[in-house]
């Protein structure tokens, strides 16, 4: 066994591995360097080990299952954060749809195309407004007078013969 092999074996032994110790003992008895290494490893491992649990820690561990189960059940009763967001988003969508429906009933333009509207006729209210703005014609209006002036009688007088007519 070389010193390198011995060091590896000593660390394994420190870790609690079960080993064939005969060859190790033979090497250690003849090698002071490896004996010092063995002592250092044992010391380092014992220093690095944390002390055993205190009574208070043991007692607290006994109640751990109950307290952890209580925390789990309390968390189960609370709404899941993702589910809560989904519920809020759904509520917002429904609210938006209801609002849109109410607005569309009030104004027929809601929800229509954004293209300019071609007006083919006036609405009733708009028509009555325009009529109210127009002045009413009087019974003997200038237009009627003009029509009377240009009215031609069906019976023609002699003077009314045109050039070339035969009397």
């Amino acid at each position, binding site marked *: 066994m070389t010193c390198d092999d011995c060091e590896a074996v000593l660390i394994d032994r420190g*870790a609690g591995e079960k080993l064939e110790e005969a060859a190790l003992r033979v090497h250690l008895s003849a090698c002071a360097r490896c004996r010092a290494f063995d002592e250092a490893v044992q*010391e380092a491992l014992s220093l*690095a080990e944390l002390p055993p*649990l205190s009574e208070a820690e043991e007692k607290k561990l006994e109640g751990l*299952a109950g*307290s952890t*189960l209580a925390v*789990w059940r309390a968390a189960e009763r609370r709404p899941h954060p993702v589910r809560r967001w989904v519920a809020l988003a759904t509520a917002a969508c429904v609210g938006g749809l209801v609002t849109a429906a109410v607005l569309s009933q009030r104004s027929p333009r809601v929800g229509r195309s954004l293209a300019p509207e071609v007006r083919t006729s006036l609405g009733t209210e708009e028509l009555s407004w325009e009529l109210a703005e127009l002045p009413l014609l009087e019974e003997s209006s200038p237009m009627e007078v003009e029509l009377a002036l240009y009215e031609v009688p069906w019976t023609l007088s002699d003077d009314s013969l045109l050039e070339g007519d035969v009397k």
Partner: protein
Amino acid sequence: MATQPLLRLVKGEEATVSDDALCRAFLTGDGAAFGELVSRHQRLVYVLVRRYCARPEDAFDLTQRAFLQAFEAARRSLPRLGRRGPVPFRAWLVRISLNLGKNHLRQTRRWAEAPLEALVHEASPTPVPSETVERAQQERLTRATVLELPPRQREVFTLRIDGDLSFAEVAQTLGIEESAAKASFHCAVRRLRELFAASKEEKKR
């Protein structure tokens, strides 16, 4: 109306039931299975996380969180795993414990709470015997020295020494080869030997 659990433990036979069966029983509503699983692994989780914590309260808090996260992982994974394979509850628990410990250490370092110092310098209403102070100082030194190791070496060391896991289990938990776990352990021990020797030299001066 309360739902009946689909699986239920038979009283007195809890110790013989596998982690997988206990986990499935709890997730279908058997509260007793939860208690059995926690009792079975609470010591392992606690000794792993206390390496990273200066105060026992923090270690208990992390232990509880480790169990809650492991059960949550089991609940999420159970539909996917189905009846195909066992729930690797213990492996999850060990891995979660290490991660929680590492996060806790990172946070305490980030916020410079100096919890390692707090262990010794905590104000006490009654005079503390010198023996207790010495023991506390030694424990602080031990913790600080192991936490100085590189992360992989520290994990292997903690799992092997504190958790008493075999090298095969250590390797499985960390997702490495068994030989790599052994090599990391060897490096950790050599490094610790140097660190302790250096601190001994400092004390002498």
